[in-house]
């Protein structure tokens, strides 16, 4: 959420940065494309509710295709992580029984694979070794890679956002109140993870995520929160069909724009911090989801999105300021642990069930994390 145009620092990267990266060309063909070239092989992944069997533990450097089959009963996700949970590739939103593929280019190094049944937590992890020569990247190359990494992340999120928003809109149009309530925080997760990108498109953000009272004079109250209000306040969504249509259209529009947008490293650093500010100002206070009280879903998503942006910068930061990286890792872990106390099933405890002491613990950990993450931008700018 936010009011339009309050963050002028976040402008489309291409207008600002000297980075010229051809990114989007590779994203046409396959289901979830991350790397680009034709894969050397296909690695089967059997994702269950309690297992994540990857049919390889050691592979050569290059582009690989992971074919992930959800054999469990819950929606799952599959990730390939480099050190510090830097996302090398991921496929979201794999429904039970479905198979989806992920193309990912992996330089030599140590990685982890993870399935996340229920789409929460650290997931079920296994080590993955990639053999071969590992090239030492220059600082500029590391930073250029950050933009590519993060764009890959954004594209994985927008794909899931599109699907989950469609499912939510379908439930609303069908008058399925319980179904829509269950889907509401899940669809928002993908939105909240990439908000720094979404906010670049100042006109669309308030249409999708504006809160009641944020609208300009004469502007209708639309988007997620309009439907949230109907779902939780009156339980009458008979008039919500047009709002569901509109939400789906606006999301489709912003997804098309976001997929084409590259954030420069400074924007990534500032975006990581901005996501934590979202937590501090909107989620801890319970303002964001004031009718549903599903603020902790958004909290978790903001935190994950912030971490994804920082981790995209990680190869550079590890050279430039390893102490800061260690501090940020520690504080992300502390914040996740603090938040982890309030997990409930596949979701989270509702905001209005948290005590003042519990909120203070969450607030303290976000405050400390923000102090650390706020120092990333200067490290990036000093290159």
């Amino acid at each position: 959420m936010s009011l339009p145009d309050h963050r002028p620092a976040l402008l489309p990267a291409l207008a600002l940065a000297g980075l010229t990266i051809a990114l989007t060309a590779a994203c046409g063909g396959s289901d979830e494309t991350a790397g680009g070239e034709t894969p050397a092989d296909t690695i089967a992944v059997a994702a269950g509710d309690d297992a994540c069997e990857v049919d390889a533990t050691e592979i050569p450097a290059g582009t690989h295709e992971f074919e992930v089959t959800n054999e469990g009963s819950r929606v799952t996700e599959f990730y390939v992580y480099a050190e510090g949970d830097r996302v090398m590739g991921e496929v979201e939103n794999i429904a039970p029984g479905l198979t989806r593929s992920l193309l990912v280019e992996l330089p030599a190094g140590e990685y982890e694979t993870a399935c996340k049944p229920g789409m929460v937590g650290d997931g079920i992890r296994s080590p993955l070794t990639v053999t071969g020569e590992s090239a030492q990247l220059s600082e500029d190359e590391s930073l250029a890679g950050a933009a590519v990494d993060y764009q890959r992340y954004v594209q994985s999120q927008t794909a899931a956002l599109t699907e989950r928003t469609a499912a939510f809109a379908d439930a609303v149009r069908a008058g399925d109140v319980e179904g829509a309530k269950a889907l509401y925080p899940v669809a928002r997760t993908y939105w909240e993870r990439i908000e720094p990108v979404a906010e670049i498109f100042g006109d669309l953000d308030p249409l999708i995520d504006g809160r009641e009272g944020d609208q300009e004079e004469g502007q209708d109250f639309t988007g997620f929160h309009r439907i949230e209000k109907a779902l939780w306040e009156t339980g009458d969504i008979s008039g919500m069909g047009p709002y569901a249509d509109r939400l789906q259209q606006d999301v489709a529009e912003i997804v098309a724009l976001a997929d084409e947008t590259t954030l420069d490293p400074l924007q990534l650093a500032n975006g990581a911090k901005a996501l934590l500010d979202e937590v501090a100002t909107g989620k801890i206070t319970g303002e964001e989801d004031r009718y549903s009280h599903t603020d902790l879903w958004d909290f978790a998503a903001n935190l994950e999105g912030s971490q994804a942006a920082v981790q995209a910068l990680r190869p550079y930061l590890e050279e430039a300021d390893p102490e800061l990286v260690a501090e940020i890792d520690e504080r992300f872990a502390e914040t996740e642990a603090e938040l982890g106390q309030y997990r409930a099933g596949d979701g989270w405890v509702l905001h209005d069930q948290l005590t003042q002491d519990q909120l203070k613990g969450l607030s303290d950990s976000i405050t400390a994390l923000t102090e650390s993450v706020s120092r990333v931008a200067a490290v990036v700018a000093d290159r």
Partner: protein
Amino acid sequence: MSEPTTAGEQGGLSRRRVLGWLGAGTAGALAGGAAGGLIGRATADDATGTVPAAHGAVPFTGAHQAGIVTPAQDRLHFVAFDVVTDDREELVEVLKAWTEAARRMTAGRDAGPEGAVAGSPHAPPDDTGEAIDLPPSELTLTIGFGPTLFTSADGVDRFGLAARRPAHLSELPPFPGDQLDPATSGGDLCIQACANDPQVAVHAVRNLVRLGAGVVSVRWSQLGFGRTSSTTADQVTPRNLFGFKDGTNNLKAEDPSGLDRFVWVDPADSGGDWLAGGSYLVTRRIRMLIEPWDTSSLREQEQTIGRAKGSGAPLGQRGEFDAVDFTARVDGGFAVPETSHVFLAHPTNAGTAILRRGYSFVDGSDGLGRLDAGMFFIAFQRDPETGFVQVQRNLRADALNEYIRHTSSAVFACPPGVRDDGDWWGRALFAG
């Protein structure tokens, strides 16, 4: 008296540099310990209106921490912290960082070496900037360690300090009529920031809080204005929100033997190996029930306090500083009633003395439209048991109790002063 020297000497801007009107006379007046007495309501009636508030710097280093017998400044920001790490090293790092920031800010400098506006445009400034252009304003920063730092409320020795906890450092006992809010009581650490400009005090606390992120968490804080005690003989006795002069008989800086006896911890005292030269700090947020007080008669008010409202003289005497005579009789009764605050709190009857350093507060109004106001009582003493606790026990029958409620309580051990450039807050406790 350390005037900040040239800007940039330590890499930051001196806030004072811009203030050309601050002359050497400032330092001279301060050296005499008289600066605090030059200002305030006592001179407001003279219609001069132009005497600047005391704005110089108070030395940060010394045998004792500043902010105890330092002439009481006019403004307070007091903050209590919980330590949220179990890592002793992290805590020590914060104490060191705080000491350096306190050293800088009390000299009128920015909190960090880069300063509010001289750092990278992409980095958050290491000083928050609201004190740019403001002089040191006699800022003092005084740190204290609460009982729970040594042993947590559930009995855990988080930092290996339990064995070093002085015998005198324990939670205060309950008193009749206490209405304490646990959320605004206690704390593992405290910092008392006093200055003659509220913005300078708030700036100091805000920057220290930032430096402590992830290691300490603010438990509660209190703003205060209008010192309610004088701590030197030169200071005019101020009035509290009941309209009475308060602190006439306070321990004063000019009484070194009294301070040694009642305020400073002796090397032979429990914990004296690290606490000698320090003192125990007791805070009580005392809500004053303003509306009932304001509608009570002048006679009732004076009988409750035991002093004349105008002159501050003890009842039955003429001048403020006339000795209290508990035998004086008026109209067949004792001039100073045995239930009056002065009668019960006076050293003669309490059998002890404390150094009071409290401030008035007004925290807006309560939900019923009544002023949420009172005194944030601060006292320093050599031992809380023979200091505040003894005094407070004696106040059980105090007529004033009808008009006040104690709503928060805390006790801290304040270590001795930072000795030199390499010293830091708590070194003797953590490194000794």
